[in-house]
């Protein structure tokens, strides 16, 4: 097992190196440079040249790449031009905010998605099934940013129950209750589409299982319907539901960008969008590399966990 983990970790190195090359190349090739973005209307060739020199962007691309890579290996991700603070601080702070939002949304969509799928399957063509199918279709069809805005209008502007935006209140906030109030709308808006997808797939997975012999056997020997559904059938259906959850986790994380913009959530998606528009090269590069590293590590952990659980995966 130790050698398997080591092998996976070693194989991550070329992946990360490839990512640094790709993101560096993209930022070097897109038109427009940070000096033009900073100077705006005042970007005379002379001013641009001077500012590029001050920002260290006058060196050849290859040299800049290796300087950047070398600094990163010593843990120095550089300084954001647009925010004037270390890239690493900004990215870690923002990424943790995204994890709070996406993590909550993921828990919500798993819980409600599976619940809805199971209820729906166990009452196939019944009233509950029809209602849930309709709600799921609606949920999948509404763009999350639109839903977010409508929620803001209803719960924040009209009813004034929840704050419009941000992660914590400006005054008297900062505790868990404050965070939950700020989290309620964005997490729900983010979870809706994934809930719908999970519900549909859970329903079909459950219907598949419910037709099988062992369910009939269970019913025949007098197991309560409640136990048949939640014990026997769901456990068997989880085998095909879990991979869907994995895919949805990715969708929730990437969908967080829109939600972060609508709810002014201080997450990494909004940070990257702003940074790209401002040509904040080091922040984009550092942000992408750090986020990619998190994905790679997460994937290795999943693989390792799977190999522990399922002996058929060779170590």
């Amino acid at each position, binding site marked *: 097992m130790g050698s398997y983990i080591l092998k996976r970790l070693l194989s991550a190195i070329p992946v990360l190196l490839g990512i640094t090359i790709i993101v560096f190349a993209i930022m070097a090739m897109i*038109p*427009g440079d940070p000096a033009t973005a*900073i100077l705006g209307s005042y970007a005379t*060739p002379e001013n641009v040249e001077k500012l590029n020199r001050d920002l260290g962007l006058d060196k050849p691309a290859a040299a800049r790449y290796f300087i950047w890579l070398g600094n990163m290996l010593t843990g120095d991700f550089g300084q954001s031009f647009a925010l004037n603070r270390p890239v690493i601080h900004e990215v870690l702070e923002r990424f943790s905010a995204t994890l709070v939002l996406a993590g909550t949304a993921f828990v919500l969509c798993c819980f409600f998605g599976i619940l809805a799928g199971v*209820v729906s399957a166990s009452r196939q063509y019944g009233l509950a099934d029809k209602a849930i199918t309709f709600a799921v279709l609606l949920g999948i069809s509404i763009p999350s940013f639109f839903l977010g805005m409508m929620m803001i209008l209803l719960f*924040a502007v009209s009813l004034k129950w929840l704050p*419009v935006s941000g992660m914590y209140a400006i005054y008297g906030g900062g505790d868990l209750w404050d965070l939950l109030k700020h989290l309620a709308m964005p997490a729900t808006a983010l979870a809706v589409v994934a809930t719908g997808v999970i519900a549909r797939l859970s329903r079909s997975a459950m219907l598949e299982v419910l037709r099988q012999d062992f369910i009939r056997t269970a019913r025949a020997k007098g197991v309560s319907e*409640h136990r048949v559904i939640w014990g026997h059938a769901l456990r068997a259906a989880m085998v095909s539901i879990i991979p869907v959850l994995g895919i949805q986790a990715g969708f929730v994380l990437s969908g967080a960008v829109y939600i972060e*913009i609508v709810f002014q959530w201080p997450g990494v998606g909004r940070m990257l969008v702003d940074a790209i528009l401002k040509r904040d090269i080091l922040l984009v590069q550092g942000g992408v590399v750090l986020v990619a590293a998190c994905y790679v590590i997460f994937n290795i952990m999943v693989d390792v966990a799977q190999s522990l659980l399922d002996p058929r995966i060779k170590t």
Partner: protein
Amino acid sequence: MQLMDWTRRSLLAAAGAGAMALGLGLPVQAQTPPGVLVVGQIAEPKALDPAAVTAVNDFRILMNVYDGLVRYKSGTLEVEPALAESWTISEDGTEYTFKLRDGVMFHDGSAFNADVVKFNFDRMLKEDHPYHNTGPFPLSFFFSAVESVDVIDAQTVKFKLNAPYAPFLSNLAYPTGLIVSQAAVEQHGADFGRNPSGTGPFKFAEWRSNEAVVVEKNPDYWDGAASLEAVVYRPITDANTRTAEMLAGGIDLMVEVPPVALSEFQTDAYRVSEQAGPHVWFLILNAKEGPFADKLVRQAANYAVNKAALVNDVLEGTAEVAAGPTPPAFAWAYNEALEPYPYDPERAKALLAEAGMQNPSVTFFVTEGGSGMLDPVAMGTAIQADLEAVGFSVKIQTYEWNTFLGEVNPGLEGKADMAEMAWMTNDPDTLPFLALRTEAWPDKGGFNSGYYSNPQVDALLDEARTATDQGRRAELYKEMQTIVHDDAPWVFVANWKQNAVTSSKVDNFQLEPSFFLLLKDVVKN
């Protein structure tokens, strides 16, 4: 059946509990406290070091924390004393001697004097200054005419310029000229931008990244203490979210209200302020080659575009029709006699016929957005339709803002016949000097991307720059406007009116033509 009952019952219970929790458990969201003004900003500031930033968004904070040697008189773009009590200008216009205000202290307790003034400008301008590395200072070229700053005595400082440069005083009133505490720069170095110290009506209290910047009242302000206890600046990038925060009471003051949202605020609970500023939105025409090399065709384009419709329908009244290259906000230098080109398609057609070009084909660079560009795609489309109605054939090419600048600033030659552009400036000299002179063609380092050239205009602008008397400068600028209006190197389209919404609890708020946000006298109940 058991499952169904269980589910239905539990769902009802859950729904009921949820509704109760929302309705009873959550108090109605607290309003902002009295004496504290919460401002909805459009972005997170870059830094609170006035020499290092370029965005109007950051200036909205800085102008309340720092003072300059001079400032704009309220409601105008004319300079008046601030940290300098008075000044004299030498005959030849190259020496400015400032008498400094006595007894002014920075928020960190250090004293304001001539040495600090010298430190401020040397830091920005001298590459070998020990604190030059606290930059970069992107707008330091505003003071590139400054040859040296000399301390005469503790309360007197003299600026020597390498040539007469009339906009110097206006540039000192701009945020780049705000005076920072030398002691604070020496203490914090490159982190000064997050630990600012000035002499202004508010002192820096706290910066929570991506949440808020908080400034508190400076009780010892030399020009009378502010009415507010504190100001909280919240960055809310999405305009719809900012509108929702305003409607929900999460912020008290909102800037840059989207035109479509203005109707939401036409009630007694809000006040909408508007103020035209030193902004002009125009189309650069390529006067070097193609159809617009002919003055008649350029004039035809000016007659063909329905500017009133653009301003009222596309921009929902958030701008006014521009008459010439100088915005009316520069009241002292604006030529009142100038009338905008009227919307007259027949006249445009006649001019095209006279030029022998009934159906000229033109390429039109449009941007997706950008500083001061208002609603560039919708405006570009409307302009295309107007031009096609009189016989032009217009091909639009759209670019993202930074790419757009990269295409337009080096000049339109060989690429396009016209391009959108907008400028916001602090002196009537800046825009024509940088974008209308022959010496400002792109290959000479200027922004005259349409290659307009008129020796008369060049001479007027050169003289205006060296004249120290404001009355004389005004005459020269007015004459320049008349010539440029007739030559039509641009299609003059709009002057943006900045807007802001305040809640009814806010009193004494006024927008400035400089577009700065000055909060000293604002009251919040």
